[in-house]
């Protein structure tokens, strides 16, 4: 069999339910709302979906690293980056150059990721507790430096939510494509799959997990920039709302919360599926409360279906 077709087949099986859902939702959206999905509007459309895709992709590395790895501070970190970039750097210090703002966002992400990684891998605090602490600290600090929404954002940044919205996402996936071709990726997946086996095979488990947290932080920094681009201002309350929906997107996209299974592309597909669902229900003027119910129902259905699929696959093997 052609290796391209084979890896495509594996990929479809991995992302499974989310991909089917994505195609169906896309078709329905196209039928009901052709104007919104017209090629001319793609830039804006991708810009609308970008923060959620970014948040989902950012949540993935620590989950892949296994043993309960999770970072619930991704959302508040996005909000914190949003506040620092607009309030502290752009409005107060008057810096508008992307050459300063982008590295600053990445650096903030890396530092927060390293702090989470230190707590979760060196001090060995349970990841959900460690990052809950970071969640609360970041949300509080953000509200302190930015009690109410302010604007605007630099023009170049706003363009990242319009015609150039594909750029930051493209950069993320190029980066991930490179990571997949380094020894680190194999070690990450091995650690996520079985950390004791990885240790006996000579993999530096703690180091690999720590780097996963830093990677999550950096990706959350990029997601924070995409959020800033979309809202074109700074808002202390939006960031934290992304955390849980991002984790829903990740598990919808076939990334196992047990670790070692899935990837960033799956997470992105999960996020796009959720975005399309959102956009469909909004088109029907459904209330946001019902939207929440729909998220939950889809997520439960996806997790159950994935589990059934896995059990089926496993049975096929043992026979």
């Amino acid at each position, binding site marked *: 069999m052609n290796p391209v077709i*084979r890896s495509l087949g594996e990929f479809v099986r991995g992302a499974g339910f989310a991909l089917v859902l994505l195609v169906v939702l896309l078709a329905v959206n196209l039928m009901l709302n052709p104007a919104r999905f017209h090629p001319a509007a793609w830039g804006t459309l991708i810009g609308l979906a970008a923060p959620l895709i970014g948040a989902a992709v950012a949540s993935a590395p620590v989950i892949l690293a296994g043993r309960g790895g999770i970072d619930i501070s991704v959302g508040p970190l996005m909000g914190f980056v949003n506040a620092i970039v607009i309030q502290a750097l752009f409005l107060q210090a008057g810096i508008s150059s992307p050459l300063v703002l982008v590295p600053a966002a990445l650096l903030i992400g890396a530092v927060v990721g390293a702090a989470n990684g230190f707590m979760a891998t060196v001090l060995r605090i349970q990841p959900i507790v460690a990052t809950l602490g970071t969640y609360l600290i970041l949300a509080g600090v953000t509200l302190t430096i930015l009690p109410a929404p302010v604007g605007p954002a630099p023009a170049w940044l706003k363009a990242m939510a319009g015609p150039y919205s594909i750029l930051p996402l493209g950069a993320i996936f190029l980066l991930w494509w490179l990571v997949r071709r380094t020894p680190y990726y*194999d070690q990450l997946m*091995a650690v996520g*799959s079985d950390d004791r*086996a*990885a240790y*006996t095979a000579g993999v530096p488990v703690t180091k690999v997990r720590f780097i996963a947290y830093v990677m999550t932080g950096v990706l959350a920094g990029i997601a924070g920039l995409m959020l800033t681009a979309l809202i074109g201002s700074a808002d202390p309350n939006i960031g934290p709302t992304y955390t849980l929906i991002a984790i829903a997107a990740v598990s919808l996209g076939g990334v*196992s919360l047990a670790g070692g299974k899935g990837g960033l592309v799956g997470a992105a597909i999960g996020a796009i599926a959720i975005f399309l669902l959102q956009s469909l229900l909004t088109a029907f003027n459904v209330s946001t409360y019902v939207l929440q119910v729909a998220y939950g129902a889809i997520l439960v259905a996806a997790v159950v279906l994935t589990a059934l699929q896995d059990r089926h696959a496993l049975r096929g093997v043992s026979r």
Partner: protein
Amino acid sequence: MAEAASLQARDVSLKPGRAAIAETIRAGEIVGLAGLDGHGQETFLKAMAGLETPASGKIMLGVEGNGRPITSLAKAASTGIAYLPRDRRSTGIFPTQSILDNFAISTVGRDMRFGLISKAERRKRYETYREKLSIVAPHPNAPITALSGGNQQKVLLARALALEPKFLLLNDPTRGVDVATRHVLYDVFRGLAADGMALVILSSEIEEILVLCHRVLVFREHEVAARFSGEGMTTDAVIAGMFGRAA
């Protein structure tokens, strides 16, 4: 010619107060470790792999009287010691990963082309070991769980051999492996020793040690209770050693 390096246990006590073990493993020999479960043979093997620190004494690698201490698994691996774990289900295979990934994990940095990993290079490396060990497997991208226990064990052995070690430490390598595969593995082990590799094999089956090993250390209560080699290596002698009786 310089003397070939050996793996030495210097006054190694496996538990405080137990008699120290002095042992030298030389190139080309197959040494068996026997004993009732939990009598120290596994601790001894893991200490040599750098996975456990003995109560006292040192593991050294090098020519007699001048060697480097082995204090960690990373140090052991970088100096040519490979370890095959015992329980392949819990500390061996990566169930969510492919055969190829399972094979390559200890040597991930070796397939680099222009700073990135080349899958083709890795496939080539895997193919040589697949032939050498006659691994019966579907496509290398298939999940490792698609293989039989014996073939999974061969992939793990290939993983260890890919390190190109001078010393191979095997922790009960044929546990849960079918008879046909066992004989393939025995031939492989003998071939490796003939090529100058030193093998230390911990086995729960005395028969296996008798057919495979040049000499055997019998452990009892965290001490080496008896050593046998050549003619003196018989089932009765080993069993007597295991139970602490004079043969």
